Structure formats: structure tokens, C-alpha cells
């Protein structure tokens, strides 16, 4: 047992990406399909208010609204903010203004980007028009951005006109791509655990109150709610406390099925960790089997555990750890 010393802080990049596939209802489908076709649609509420972009339910009455109307591709800036340093994935890579634009014929405003050379070229009340994206797929980004309106733009487009919302090959879903970048730091306890693994040692931490040894340690005893500060090397051998036979091959997994996945109580540990059992036919793995870790070259954790050849552990020795 050793007292914890200040660990070197580990860090690693962590990228989380997810493509959410979302279905569209009739209103959102009509709006996004319309953008693909170069038409901006809104909805009319029961009291005659035109909402662009359209919502499916009245935000005041919660009544369903379906009455589509076409509005202009020109409008008026209702508020703005100058973005001098565009961030990844934003509509323009050069400095631009964020704007809320009330399109001609609409009573509400939509958020988008405005392409102007600088903050002096934008003001509330300014007239703007849609700049369509070169390739349109049925997404809000089919509007590449807004740009200053030119003389003559928007003439006669002040009224919303009924629209049936029917288009050939309607867009019924979008894929919303998202990516977030993190720098992961595992904290004091897990840093010590990972540092131990680099020397092919398994390091747990003992609770100063109940004396249980947690492996892998997470820094706290969930029973006592106190920090686990005393480091303890456990294993390397351990006992299979329970197991299952996996018959379904996971994607990208280079292990033949069936194989055994087990809970293994390393000697000295107060709870079992997970690991794959190898070096023995799957149907001969049993509770109480004594196993030891097998490290592969360059492996940062045991590849699997194999039988040690010792006699099986007595049930009473590990029954509290199942």
C-alpha cells in the first residue's frame, strides 16, 4: 500500500460524432422541400399570424397548424450580431453577421447568417434577400446565407400567398451531423490506474472507511461516499465469479464466437472487473476458475485472461464478489 502522490495529468483527444437521423412531419417536410425548390413557406395560425420558419403547433394555443403559405425571399433584419471569428460548421467561413430576418409576408423572424463586409454594413431594419446554396438537399443550409437586397428586390412580395405544400419527391427526413471535440482527462484515481497498466500492473484503491479495494478505481467509495486514496496492487491472478457465452459477433470485433465474457475478481480486489476468457474451450469455463491476464505486445490492457492451472477457488472465497 502506498499513499497517493500527485499524478502526472493524462490527457487525450476525444471526438464525439453522431449523425442523428430525424423524420419530418408534414409542415417541416414542406418547408425544407420548399427550400430545395427555392420557395420559402410558412404557416398561418388561427388568428392570421404567419410564422416563418413554420411550427407545427401554435405556441400560444397549442393548436395544430397546417395552413401553408408562401412568403418572400426578401425581408427585414430585426436584430443582428457581428461574428468576427466564425467557428467551425457555421454558415460562412469569413466574418459575418448573425441576423434574425422577418421575411416579407411573415410575422416572425428566422435565424441565419448575413454576408456583408463588416459591422458598418448591417443595421436593424436593413433589407436583405436569400442567397441560395448552389446545391440544395432539403435542409436549412439550402439557404447559404442572406445578402443585402438590391433595388427592386421584393417588390410585390409583401403578402403571404396560400401554398399547397406539394412538391415532387418530398424530403421526409434530415441527417443532423454533429461533432464535438474534447480533451479527456481521467482524473487522479483513473490516471494512477492507467499508469499502472502501462507497467502491466493492476492498481486498485482502498476505501479508508470500509477497506474495500475498488478496481478499476474511480476515486470514490460508492458505499461510504469518501475518497479512496490508498493505492493497492491487485492480481495478477483472479477468480471467475460469473460469466456468459457470447454468440453474436460484434461489428469490427476480431474475435470468433462463441467466446466467454466473465467477471473476474483479481486477488486482493473487493469487486470483480470484466474480461474475456481465452485459452480454454468456451463450454469448459466455470465459476471459480482461476485465471491470469494475457498481455499482447504493445497492449494497454490485458487482451484476455487464461486459466492458471490452479485448482478452482472454493465458492465461499468469492461468493461475496458475485
Amino acid at each position, binding site marked *: 500500500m502506498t499513499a497517493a502522490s500527485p*499524478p502526472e*495529468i493524462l490527457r487525450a483527444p*476525444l471526438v*464525439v460524432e453522431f449523425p*442523428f437521423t*430525424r423524420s*419530418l412531419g408534414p409542415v*417541416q417536410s414542406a418547408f*425544407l422541400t420548399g427550400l430545395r425548390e427555392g420557395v420559402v413557406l410558412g404557416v398561418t395560425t388561427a388568428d392570421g399570424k404567419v*410564422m*416563418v*420558419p413554420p*411550427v407545427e403547433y401554435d*405556441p400560444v394555443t397549442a393548436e395544430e397548424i397546417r395552413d401553408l403559405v408562401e412568403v418572400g425571399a426578401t425581408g427585414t433584419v*430585426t*436584430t*443582428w*450580431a*457581428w*461574428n*468576427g471569428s466564425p*467557428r467551425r*460548421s*457555421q454558415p460562412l467561413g469569413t466574418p459575418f453577421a*448573425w441576423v*434574425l430576418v*422577418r421575411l416579407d409576408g411573415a410575422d*416572425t*423572424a*428566422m*435565424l*441565419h*447568417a448575413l454576408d456583408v463586409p463588416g*459591422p458598418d454594413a448591417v443595421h*436593424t431594419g436593413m433589407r436583405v434577400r436569400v442567397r441560395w446554396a448552389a446545391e440544395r438537399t432539403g435542409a*436549412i*443550409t439550402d439557404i447559404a446565407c442572406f445578402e443585402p437586397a438590391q433595388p427592386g428586390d421584393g417588390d410585390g412580395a409583401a403578402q403571404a400567398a396560400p401554398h399547397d405544400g406539394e412538391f415532387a419527391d418530398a424530403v421526409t427526413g*434530415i441527417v*443532423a451531423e*454533429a461533432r*464535438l*471535440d*474534447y*480533451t*479527456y*482527462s*481521467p*482524473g*487522479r*484515481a483513473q*490516471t494512477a490506474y492507467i499508469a499502472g497498466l502501462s507497467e502491466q500492473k493492476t492498481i486498485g484503491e482502498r476505501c479508508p472507511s470500509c477497506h474495500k479495494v475498488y478496481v478499476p478505481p*474511480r*476515486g*470514490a*467509495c*460508492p*458505499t461510504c*461516499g*469518501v*475518497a479512496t486514496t490508498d493505492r493497492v496492487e491487485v492480481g495478477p491472478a483472479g477468480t471467475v465469479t460469473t460469466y456468459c457465452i457470447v454468440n453474436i459477433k460484434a461489428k469490427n470485433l476480431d474475435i470468433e464466437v462463441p467466446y466467454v465474457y466473465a467477471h473476474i475478481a483479481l486477488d486482493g480486489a473487493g469487486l470483480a472487473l470484466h474480461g474475456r476468457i481465452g485459452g480454454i474451450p468456451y463450454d469448459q469455463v466455470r465459476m471459480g476458475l482461476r485465471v491470469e491476464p494475457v498481455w499482447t505486445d504493445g497492449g494497454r490492457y490485458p487482451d484476455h485472461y487464461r486459466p492458471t492451472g490452479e485448482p478452482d477457488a472454493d465458492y465461499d472465497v468469492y461468493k461475496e464478489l458475485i
Partner: protein
Amino acid sequence: MPDTTRHAREVAVVAFAQSDHRRRTDELSEVEMVMPVLHQVLAQTGLKAGEIGFTCSGSSDYLAGRAFSFTMTLDGVGAWPPISESHVEMDGAWALYEAWVKIQTGEADTALVYSYGKSSPGSVRDVLTRQLDPYYVAPLWPDSVALAALQAQALIDSGETDEAALAEIGARNRASASSNPYAQLSGAVPQGDYQVAPLRTGDCPPIGDGAAAVILAAGDVARRLCERPAWITGIDHRIEAHSLGLRDLTDSPSTRIAAEHAGVFEGPVDTAELHAPFSSQEVVLRKALGLDGSVSVNPSGGALAANPVMAAGLIRIGEAAARIHRGESDRAVAHATSGPCLQQNLVAVLEGDRA
């Protein structure tokens, strides 16, 4: 005696603790950051975790990029044998609301509420875009500062503030934070360059990691645990339409309605702890809550001095309560917000027994 007859049971904040709020805490996992705060708040009451009737936490996995991170921080409570526990993917102020409801039902007499945010692993401006409408808004990645800047410009256009007045709000909050040892920013902080104009660095909250915890107790239990309990005489929360273009960004009707239901306007308040991460949002909240110059607004420094996302709202309730505990306030209003441009707002009234 404050009027606590509005609800079935008298409930008070009896203890509050928070971490030092820091730009980075790389050496700490989330539970390692939260646990000392839990120990501090329990020590204030002498209660052990197993004696708490209900535990509720608030956090968001998106901040640190870790799935189900709240289950890990629960280790810091001591959740075995099993405890009655819940979690909200929201600021801890909403976890406090859930705990308050639990006590109102009679199912618990005490509650431990905690929340935390570890923003340093990611880019919080980008992370917060993932809470926006995924069809029309999130694909444009408008960050939290950009959306607040649209609101600020709307306020400037309406004549309700200007950039100089916003700078004064930032300066006043950080000057107040000089007496707050937990604050991340305090004293004279340069106003800095535009982040997204009209907002400058000084109008924006610091990005940092932090945690907070509160203990609630009912009736005589509260009187036993705390010399001067901070009675929650009213609490309410409201939400506005999600589409920014539908809203009047210069006003916050949800705050006003929540305040009416919480009883804010039924008597004078001496203290207001407002969760206004941007200077311009303080302008909106002061108007919605009808606060005049007689009210001490954000004596802690507010979110402009420390804004651990998901904990900053709970801290406002805790700071207001702590002032009552210390005898520095008799009737305080605490406010928490969530979402872009003050989309969701929670308002609580806290009162101390009069001598």
C-alpha cells in the same frame, strides 16, 4: 414569520456549499470535483448521506463528453445501501425544484441537491448549440455568445441599454465578487475585445468547472438543522417558445410569470441573485422582476464572476439562502435560467424568520 402557508409544507434551504470555480480541473474526475462539496454541505448540518430522504442532481453529459456521468458522481454520495435518487439533465436549480416537490408530497423531510459542470474538456460555446432546434437552428451552429449578442443588440435598438451600461454591469458584478472567495473572476476585469458584437469579453461569463450542493429540510427538521433557515415561500418555473424569432428578446415573460406565481411581487425584496450569464440578460431580468436600486443584485458576483454550467443556477439559490442564514437578508429572490436567451426561467422567494 414569513408566510409559508402557500404550500402544504414549510421547506427551507438549510445548508449550501460550492467549489472554487476554476478554468480547468484536469487533475480531477467529475466525482473527485463534486465529492468535497458534498462533504461540506453535509457537515454543515451534521447529517450523514444515509440520513437524507431524497437526493437529486443536475448536470449534462455533453459538457465533458461522458455518457451517464451523473451515475459516476453518485459514488460521491455513498449510494449503497440504495438511496432515493433522481437526476435532471438541467441546471441544479431544477433538481432543487424536483426535491422541493418530493418534500411537498411528504415522501421526504430532507433532500440533498447537487449539480456540477466540467466545461473545460470541451468547447462550451459549441456544446450548447446541441440544445437548439435540430431542424432549423442547430445545423447553423450559432454559439451561445452569438445568440446572447442578438438579444443584446435588440435591447440596444430598443433604447433599454447601451454598450457602456453593459460594461458597468460586468464591472459591478466582478467588483462584488471580490468578497466571494469561490469566484473565478473578481475585481477589475478588462472589458476586452468583441466576442460577438455588441458583446465584449467582459459581458460574457467565464468558462469554468465547478460544483454546488444544497440541503433542503421541512418544518421543524429545518429549525433543528439551521439557526436561521431560508424558507422557500414560493418557487415556480416557466418556459417560452423555442423559436427565437417568435419571441420578444427584450422581455422575459416567463420570468415575470414565474415570479408572480412564486409571490415575488407580494412584498419587497432586499436581495436578488440573478442567473444572468451575459450582462445584457441582467437588464432583461431586472425589468421582468421589477427590481429597483434598493435591491442588492448579485452580491456574490453572479454568473459573470463564475458560471459553472448546470450549477450556476443552483448557486444563485444557495447564495441567496446563505445571505439569509447569515442575517444579511430577510427576503431574497433567486433566479435560474437555462437555454438560449433566457428561454427557461425559475424563480424562488427565500425568507428568513424575523427577529
